[in-house]
């Protein structure tokens, strides 16, 4: 017995100047199904969603909603039809509370005035029915990334959508709490809501979805029941080649002690931190959200200041640190929030990639930037990273998430002075194929003699790529595991 079809897309083509983002895509979403969508960077997933939600219009092709042919000419039209989406990057108004953000655009009014009480009462009911425990009465600017995402999910669900699209929903939620989201998804599925679940995480896709559609290079190449698909098959369709190895071979390159912290504390969350990183070593940081990994990274890079203890680089103690001092000392950080902290929206690829080198390598007469050298350097970096782009003058905002991340990381790679690089969630929201490329990059860095601190919430990748692992809990390090002792359950026990 086949369920009714909610959304049907036929022969969809979407072109932009110079690029065909979607090439003859067929897709069918049934009522009450959780439909997984997976594909590499640039495969067309975001473009597809932008069309379904009314941000773009198709160049050619038809969309049928509940059996009727439609064109959504604006987000409002898609919203009215009952389609809601939670994006990869946050969409919230910082000074409004969680409840106000949840009802943004759909405020309940009484005699022309917004009825905050009624809104709050409905939000509380929604919270209770979904089992989500998040502060909804404070401005969202005060909430952590994971909490903000929950607010957005609640916003999407507050209007009882017929179709909910989730774009990398678990990218900023810790592994343990993915289950809560899944419970929510199961619940709304039982109520007849359809879900499009876009993710790169195989485990999740297989555990929550009914069917999976695989995209590659602007086309949908396969749709099948999740129960009949296997990870290898999915990867094969995604990248059209066999990926027998998920992680590169780990060859130890550790040499002398590079970084050492002694009883380090920041007077807030972090305390009694004693870690070491050797040159040529890849050290992982794992822990729950809020356990102190990113705080320590920012402390080591000089974004915040220490209150107690010492940081030693190559035996020398560093008194005060600032990001520019850190960089001078060869310590680099690639931030977690690549949208806000990693890239310059208004600069093109070329400028973004070469910006760390403007002074040293590209400085010409009176500080003018040497254009030819800039272009060569950018090409070199782009090639090293396997960047997928149209041309160097393209705006970085047009790139897919994975490619953006490549630039965020990649721009530092040509820095000969680099001694220690701290990567905060470098593979967040990136597909399997690109992830592998980044793992190779990380091991290559180690081979070059650079020390790498690899912060991640995906335990499998840490276990696959690192030489050693520090587990964080409540602001300090609770255990230090060498590769021989890597054990998934053990780590989880320490972290929780």
């Amino acid at each position, binding site marked *: 017995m086949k369920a009714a079809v909610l959304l049907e897309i036929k022969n969809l083509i979407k072109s932009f100047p110079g690029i065909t983002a979607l090439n003859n895509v067929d897709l069918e979403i049934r009522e009450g199904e959780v439909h997984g969508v997976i594909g590499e960077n640039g495969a067309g997933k975001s473009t597809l969603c932008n069309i379904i939600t009314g941000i773009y219009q198709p160049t050619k092709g038809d969309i049928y909603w509940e059996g009727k042919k439609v064109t959504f000419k604006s987000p*409002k039209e898609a919203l009215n039809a009952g389609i809601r989406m939670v994006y990869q990057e946050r969409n919230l108004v910082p000074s409004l509370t969680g409840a106000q953000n949840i009802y943004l655009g759909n405020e309940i009014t009484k005699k022309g005035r917004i009825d905050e009480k009624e809104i709050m009462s409905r939000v509380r009911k929604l919270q209770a029915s979904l089992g989500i425990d998040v502060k909804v009465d404070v401005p969202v600017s005060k909430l*952590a990334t994971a909490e903000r995402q929950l607010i957005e999910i609640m916003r999407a669900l507050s209007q009882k959508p017929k179709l909910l699209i989730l774009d990398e929903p678990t990218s900023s939620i810790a592994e343990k709490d993915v289950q809560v989201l899944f419970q929510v998804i199961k619940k709304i599925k039982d109520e007849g809501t359809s879900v499009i679940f876009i993710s790169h995480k195989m485990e999740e896709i297989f555990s929550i979805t009914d069917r999976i559609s695989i995209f590659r290079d602007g086309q949908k190449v396969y749709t099948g029941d999740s129960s009949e698909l296997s990870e290898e098959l999915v990867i094969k369709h995604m990248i059209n080649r066999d990926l027998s190895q998920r992680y590169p071979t780990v060859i130890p390159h550790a040499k002398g002690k590079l970084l050492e912290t002694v009883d380090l504390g920041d007077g807030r969350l972090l305390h009694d931190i004693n870690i070491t990183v050797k040159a040529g070593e890849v050290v992982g940081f794992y822990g729950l*959200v809020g356990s102190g990994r990113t705080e320590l990274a920012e402390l080591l890079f000089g974004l915040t200041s220490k209150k107690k203890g010492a940081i030693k680089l190559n035996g020398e103690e560093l008194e005060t640190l600032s990001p520019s001092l850190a960089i001078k000392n060869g310590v680099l950080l690639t931030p977690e929030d690549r949208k806000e902290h990693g890239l310059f929206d208004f600069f093109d690829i070329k400028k973004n990639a070469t910006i760390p080198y403007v002074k040293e390598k590209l400085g010409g007469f009176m500080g003018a930037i040497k254009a030819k050298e800039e272009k060569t350097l950018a090409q070199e970096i782009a090639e090293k990273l396997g960047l997928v782009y149209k041309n160097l003058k393209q705006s970085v905002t047009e790139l897919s998430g994975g490619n953006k991340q490549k630039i965020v990381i990649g721009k530092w790679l040509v820095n000969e002075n680099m001694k220690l690089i701290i990567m905060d969630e470098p593979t967040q929201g990136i597909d399997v194929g690109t992830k592998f490329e980044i793992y190779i990059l990380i091991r290559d860095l180690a081979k070059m003699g650079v020390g790498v601190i690899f912060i991640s919430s995906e335990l499998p990748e840490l276990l696959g790529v690192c030489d050693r692992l520090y587990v964080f809990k409540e602001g300090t390090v609770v255990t230090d595991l060498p590769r021989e002792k890597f054990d998934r359950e053990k780590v989880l026990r320490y972290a*929780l």
Partner: protein
Amino acid sequence: MVSKLVETPKESKSARPIELLMSYGVLLIGILLFVYFSARQPMFYTSSNILTILRQASVIGLISLAMMTTVIIGDFDISVTVNANFCAIVIILLIMNNVNLYLALLIGMLCSILVSFFNCFAVVTIGLPSFVATIAVKFFLEGVCRGLTGGQQVYPDVFPDGFHTFGRGMIADVIPVQVVIFLVSTAILAYLIQYTRHGRYITALGESPETSFHVGINIKKIRFIAYLISGILIGLAGIITASMYSVASVGTTDGYATPILIATFLGASFLRGDQLPLPNPKGTALSAVILAILANGFTMLGVPFYSKQIIQGGVLVFTVIAVSILMNRRRAIEATTNSKA
């Protein structure tokens, strides 16, 4: 339950001293200045002087509120001062041509609204940055004003009944009409922004245009509403100016330009606690009053005429720097405490 989702930092996020200072600081400064001037110069603390202060604050306040409205949505309308003068000139000229008083006032306000709409059109449809578009409009309007008045001070021989109410009249013999208009406008604007849907969308648009787009807010419509409000406030200011000065002249409102700039931003931290400063009606209105107190006080103390400009300039620089520092601090704090780990 997601109780273990985020281990909240041990320290509570209560407002730090500097934020409290900025939050109520504007009010404190006002009170301090008032007390200071009263102590130095007894004439300051007379009811007639206080009324003068409030009168001066009213026009500046109304135009500041107009500019503030465009700043909230993320634009910047620098033509507001000249627009108000333009309205005043139109009114006087119409009266000189024996147009009915209320019709003249209405047409004057419509002119201001039209200019405001044109600014909006330039931003929305042509796509110019608001600062650039409104500077161009400002120059254009100055030229128009010059043309209309011939560079002279123009005034009618006879004023219709009721003309002087707005600028010089009193309600219940106690409060000047313009002050009432100013205060009521502030209250209405504050209410609109905080408690109505469109007001909320104005805030949302300014803080996060992307979010507004994704939740289906009609951004063009909200922009027009903001510029409409701005135009109405400018029209009111123009009416009061015409009524106060009784002459149409180029440059009547020029002296207000700096205080208006200051007031728009100085009030941004008012009552915001430890949040990001954001221009708001009450803060802007209060700042306008404080600036009027400052200007009046200096005159009372016989301070040299150029000092006023220096002081105002200093206050403007201080405000901009202070607000910037606060916003950066706030962003840095949020960035680290809100990161995943």
